[in-house]
């Protein structure tokens, strides 16, 4: 099969897969329905402060697997729904940021800087439309880059990398994520070390369960979902509840924001914001393609670049960035949304999750089976490579999600103002119970709730000590792969102790892994206050 045949097969897998119903005799596939449902659920989740795409993905995964089962037919509907959530929550996050000065997601914090002043000036509707237009534009651009670069990169990896180089690449990715995420490279490395330590508990090649101290509960290792959901979801719920409790103690009450006015977006508005969207989309996509660098940095850089360009053009009488200008909203939203598609470049081309959403895609693929994100997917063989068909099917679901986002996403997003008023102190405990229930239905063992609770406390402590949980999660997900690849590489090189640096590419990766730690640590050292 050629490239065009595979693309065609991927598109057909989406549209001619299992059928949900017919409209005027035209069959509508389950995958299309699931992408649409995921997008709408994602917008609701993004628009609800305290929730977010990670909670949405964690809760929906067991339900989706229960509905669709463990057959290859389940892959596209399940992953399509998850992609819908990723895209929807990015758009929805702007709603509470603009209407109530409350970022629905961490990366929409910058949106509050101009979005909320626009609301106070009676331009809430215009700000929401600018945010939607910019967000979907950035996301679409990012997806196009994913479609072009992921297969290309994967083919390069398969052609030029053997087991030692792949091991070195995983080490480089872990080192990069650990040092660039968060405020301290040392704490990033600690987070990574914790992730590796916990994933190695109870596992190994020998019959003896390692590092368990004889505790039988640990002998089969720690369930990945319990650790990931515990650190990310439960840890952040604890953190939010603690903030609310402090607020209650300090102010005597918990503040929930009030509604504001609306207005429209015009064609001249779109002309005004277009260069800001283009600049931010480039910034966001470049940042998103690097594993571990999140949309928050993209939003910050996009906003800073937009502010610099705006200062050069603006008249004296024009308001500044931060005083309620649409360009500020556009710069931020285009940047943070264009991270979404590009973030999937490392996971699809290298098998390395670049962000938490990608971690859940890997969990879904692992749970269902039949698809292992990584360079081996992009093998254009003469016989049908089913994984490649699924990959092009996934690209198709992203296009569908974008089309829906362009058409109905904006209307739905603007109607979500009410979700931002949901009081967090009632919402978060209910979400916690829902998270426990969703973990239980997957594993049907109370111990998994115990594990998740333990990792929730760990996640809370990490947040309170300034340790980013992302390196932990990525190390936990990649730990077993790292060990297995290293074992195979060591055996394949005849027990060469220097197998990681036995080729120029290996030397390059390991040197880069060390250099990124040293350079980042030195930079932070010089920028640290004395």
């Amino acid at each position, binding site marked *: 099969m050629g490239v065009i045949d595979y693309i065609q097969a991927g598109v057909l897998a989406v549209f001619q897969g299992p059928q949900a119903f017919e409209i005027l005799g035209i069959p509508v596939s389950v995958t299309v329905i699931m992408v649409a449902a995921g997008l709408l659920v994602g917008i609701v989740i993004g628009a609800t402060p305290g929730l977010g795409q990670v909670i949405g993905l964690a809760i929906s995964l*067991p*339900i989706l697997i*229960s509905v669709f089962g463990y057959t290859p037919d389940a892959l596209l509907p399940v992953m399509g729904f998850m992609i819908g959530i990723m895209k929807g929550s990015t758009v929805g996050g702007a709603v509470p940021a603009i209407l109530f000065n409350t970022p629905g997601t961490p990366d929409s914090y910058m949106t509050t800087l101009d979005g909320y002043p626009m609301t106070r000036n009676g331009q809430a509707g215009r700000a929401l439309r600018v945010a939607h237009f910019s967000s979907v534009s950035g996301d679409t651009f990012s997806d196009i880059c994913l479609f072009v670069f992921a297969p290309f990169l994967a083919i390069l990896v398969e052609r030029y990398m053997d087991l030692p180089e792949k091991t070195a690449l995983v080490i480089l990715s872990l080192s990069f994520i650990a040092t660039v995420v968060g405020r*301290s*490279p*040392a*704490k990033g*490395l*600690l987070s990574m*070390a914790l992730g*590796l*330590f916990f994933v*190695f508990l109870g596992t*190994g*090649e*020998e019959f*003896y369960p*390692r*590092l*368990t101290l004889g505790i039988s509960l640990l002998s089969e290792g720690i369930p990945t979902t319990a650790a990931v959901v515990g650190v990310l979801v439960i840890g952040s719920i604890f953190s939010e*509840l*603690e903030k*609310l*409790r402090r607020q*209650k103690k300090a102010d005597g009450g918990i503040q929930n924001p009030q509604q504001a006015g609306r207005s429209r977006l015009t064609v001249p508005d779109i002309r005004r914001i277009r260069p800001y969207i283009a600049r931010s989309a480039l910034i966001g996509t470049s940042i998103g393609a690097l594993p571990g660098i999140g949309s928050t940095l993209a939003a910050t850089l996009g906003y800073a670049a937009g502010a610099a360009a705006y200062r050069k053009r603006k008249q004296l009488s024009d308001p500044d960035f931060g005083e309620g200008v649409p360009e500020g909203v556009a710069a931020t939203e285009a940047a943070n949304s264009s991270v979404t598609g590009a973030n999937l470049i490392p996971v699809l081309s290298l098998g390395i999750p670049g962000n938490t959403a990608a971690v859940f895609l890997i969990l879904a693929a692992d749970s269902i089976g039949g698809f292992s994100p990584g360079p081996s997917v992009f093998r254009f063989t003469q016989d049908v490579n089913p994984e490649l068909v699924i990959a092009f099917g996934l690209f198709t679901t992203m296009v569908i999600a974008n089309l829906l986002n362009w058409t109905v996403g904006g209307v739905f997003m603007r109607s979500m103002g009410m979700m931002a008023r949901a009081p967090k*102190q*009632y919402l978060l*405990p*209910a979400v*916690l*119970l*829902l998270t*426990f*229930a*969703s973990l*239980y*239905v997957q594993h*049907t*063992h*109370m111990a998994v*709730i115990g594990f998740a*609770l333990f990792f929730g*406390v760990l996640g*809370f402590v990490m947040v*309170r*000590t*300034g340790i980013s949980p992302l390196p932990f999660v990525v190390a936990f997900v990649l730990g077993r792969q*790292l*060990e297995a690849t*290293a*074992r195979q590489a060591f*055996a394949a090189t*005849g*027990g060469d102790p220097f197998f990681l640096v036995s080729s120029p590419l290996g030397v390059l990766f390991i040197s880069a892994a060390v250099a990124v*730690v040293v350079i980042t*640590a030195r930079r*932070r*050292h010089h920028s*640290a*206050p004395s």
Partner: protein
Amino acid sequence: MRLSQNQFLGILCLLFGGLLILVWAPLDSGNWYVVQVRGKYSIGDSMAPAFAGAIFLVSGLMMLFGPQNDDEPAPDRSDVTFIFGILATIVVGLVIMRFGGPAAAAVLGLEYRPLRDSVPWKFLGFGLGGFYMVATLVAFVEGRLTWRAMATGIGAVLLIIVLYDLPFEDLLLPPNGDV
């Protein structure tokens, strides 16, 4: 000399990393760092934990000798009170969830296992424990127990039953997979 929070954390990392590499990994794994099988060397089960231990060491050294900021976030007494309070609430909720149904059945002289797939038994433990957990957590954050907190508890339990149990016959709510 007074240690900063980072330096304290760094020393803990060094101690844990050293313990992991030198004692825990080799003594509590199936074999050592490298093993020889039929004349060929291969990586043993101790190697991966030792690699994690090495990263603990690097991280510890960087924290011990790196820049020390006074504004590093650190947990305070309020965090400790909060986490113990929230843990106590959740653990009590989970205990009610796990033993609520079997205890109620025992009071009536019945065995829970044959009843666990029938209404209302299959919802009893989850309902009681879930309601307690949600209502008490809301009360813990707000500093008082309100009708809204209790309504949230009931609403959350009903929502989850509607979401997981009613549409799916094969999904088990806690604790019905354990009992």
